[in-house]
C-alpha cells in the first residue's frame, strides 16, 4: 500500500459483472482503480497504444526489465516499443500474475463442464480467449494481437521443482489495484476466474472500475522511478509525443 495520487472523488464508477468483458481508453494522466467486490476476483487484461495499435503490452520486456515475475506497486507495464503504457501506483493485494493467461472454449468446457447460452442465458460459461477476442474485434484487432495477458488479483508462484502453485487467498473483498496512464492506453479486459484456480465450479466474480484524475502527475512519475529501467522507459514515453 502506498499514498494515493488522486482525490476521493472519482470521475466515473462502473461495475463489471463476473464473466463480462469490456474495453476503454484510459487517458493520459488518469488512474483506473479495479476493486474486487466480493473477494477472489480475477481480471485478465491486454494493453495497447490506441494511437498505434501495433504497440502493445510486452510482458517479457516488463518482467525482465524489472527482474520480477510478480507485479505490484512500483512496477510499470512496458510496451514492445520501450514505453510505459501503465504503472501500478497502489495495490492492496501485493501480487498480480503474469503467467496464467486465459482459457479458451475447449479448456473451459473441460474444466467446468457444459454451460451453454441455450440453457443458461446470460449465465453461460464464458472463456477468456473469446471474451478478449470479441472485445479486441471492436477495435479492429485480431487473433495476432492476443498476447500474454496480466491476471490482476491472482497469485501464482513457482516452487523449487519449477511447478506452478496457485494461491487461493490473494485477494479479498475490497482489495484494489490502481493503474496510472502516463500515455493514453487502450485496455481490453475480462473478469473470469484465473485458469489455474483449482475450483471446478464456474463462479466469475465482479469488479468495480473507478476512474480518477491524477492530481500530482510529477509525484506519480517520481514514485514509479523505483529503478533506472523505469526512468528510461518513462523517458521513452515522453518522447512518443513531445
Amino acid at each position, binding site marked *: 500500500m502506498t499514498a494515493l495520487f488522486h482525490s476521493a472523488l472519482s470521475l466515473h464508477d462502473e461495475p463489471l459483472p463476473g464473466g463480462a468483458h469490456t474495453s476503454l481508453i484510459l487517458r493520459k494522466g488518469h488512474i483506473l482503480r479495479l476493486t474486487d467486490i466480493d473477494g477472489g476476483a480475477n481480471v485478465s487484461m491486454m494493453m495497447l497504444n490506441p494511437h498505434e495499435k501495433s504497440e502493445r503490452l510486452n510482458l517479457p520486456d516488463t518482467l525482465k*526489465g524489472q*527482474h520480477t515475475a510478480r507485479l505490484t506497486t512500483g512496477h510499470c507495464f512496458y510496451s514492445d516499443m520501450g*514505453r510505459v503504457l501503465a504503472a501500478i501506483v497502489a495495490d492492496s493485494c501485493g501480487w498480480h500474475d503474469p*503467467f496464467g493467461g486465459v482459457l479458451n472454449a475447449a479448456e473451459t468446457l473441460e474444466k467446468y463442464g457444459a454451460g451453454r447460452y441455450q440453457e443458461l442465458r446470460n449465465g453461460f460459461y464464458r472463456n477468456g480467449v473469446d471474451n478478449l477476442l470479441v472485445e479486441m474485434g471492436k477495435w479492429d484487432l*485480431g487473433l495476432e494481437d492476443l498476447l*500474454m495477458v496480466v491476471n490482476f488479483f491472482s497469485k501464482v508462484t513457482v516452487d523449487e521443482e*519449477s511447478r*506452478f502453485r496457485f494461491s487461493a487467498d490473494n485477494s479479498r473483498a475490497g482489495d484494489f489495484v490502481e493503474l496510472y496512464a502516463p500515455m493514453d492506453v487502450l485496455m481490453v479486459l475480462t473478469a473470469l476466474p484465473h485458469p489455474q484456480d483449482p475450483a471446478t465450479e464456474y463462479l466469475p466474480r465482479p469488479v468495480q472500475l473507478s476512474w480518477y484524475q491524477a492530481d500530482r502527475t510529477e509525484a506519480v512519475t517520481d514514485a514509479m522511478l523505483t529503478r533506472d529501467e523505469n526512468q528510461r522507459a518513462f*523517458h521513452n514515453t515522453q518522447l512518443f509525443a513531445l
Partner: protein
Amino acid sequence: MTFIISDRRPEDAFYRHVIPAGEPWLFDVKQGQTLRLLDLEGNQAIDTLFYNADNPRERYDPQRTLRRQGKVYLTTGSVLYSSLGNPLLTIVADTCGRHDTLGGACSQESNTVRYAQNKRYMHSCRDNFLCACLHDGRLHKRDIGANINFFMNVPVTPEGGLTFEDGVSAPGKYVELLAECHVMVLISNCPQLNNPCNGWNPTPAEVLIWN
C-alpha cells in the same frame, strides 16, 4: 534436469543450415518432420517463434504452454500450444535440460530501457524478426509475440524474482521438436552483447530437419 538423447544422425537430415551469429532464419517444417536446433559453440540463445503455416495469425502461446504442463521451463515432453489451443510441436529430445519462454527477445527499444539510451543502435532479435517477416510476406509486426529462448536460462524464484543467468548450454547441445502440424519457424540467432545470455560472444547455430 533430465537429458534425452536423440538417435537421429546428422548425415540423414534432408535439410541443414548454419545460421551465422546475429542473423535471422525463417523456414517451414511439415507435419511429422523433426527439427533439431544445435548450439554449435555453446551458450547461444536461439530466439524462436512458431506459427501455423495454414493460418499464420495462429502463433505459439507461452502462457497456455506453461499452464498446460504446470511447469515454468521447457524440456523434453513439453507440448508447444498455439493461441487457439492447438499443439504446434512437441519437444522430443533435449541435451540441454531446460529452455526459457519468459524472457522474450531483445529489441532496440528494450535495450534503451534495460541498459542505456545509447544502446538503441545495437543489433537485436526483434529487428531480425521484422526483417525476416517482411521479406517473407506472410508475417507482420503484429504477429511477433513472446518467443522461446532455446538454450537460455532465466530462473524464476519462489519469491517471484526473475534473473538472467549464465547459459546452461555447452558446445554441441541440442533440442529436437516434432512438428504436429505444418509450422513456420522464425529464428533470430541472438546478437545481444549486453548480458550473459550468449556468454558475451554470439556464435553460429545449426538447424537440421529429418523426414
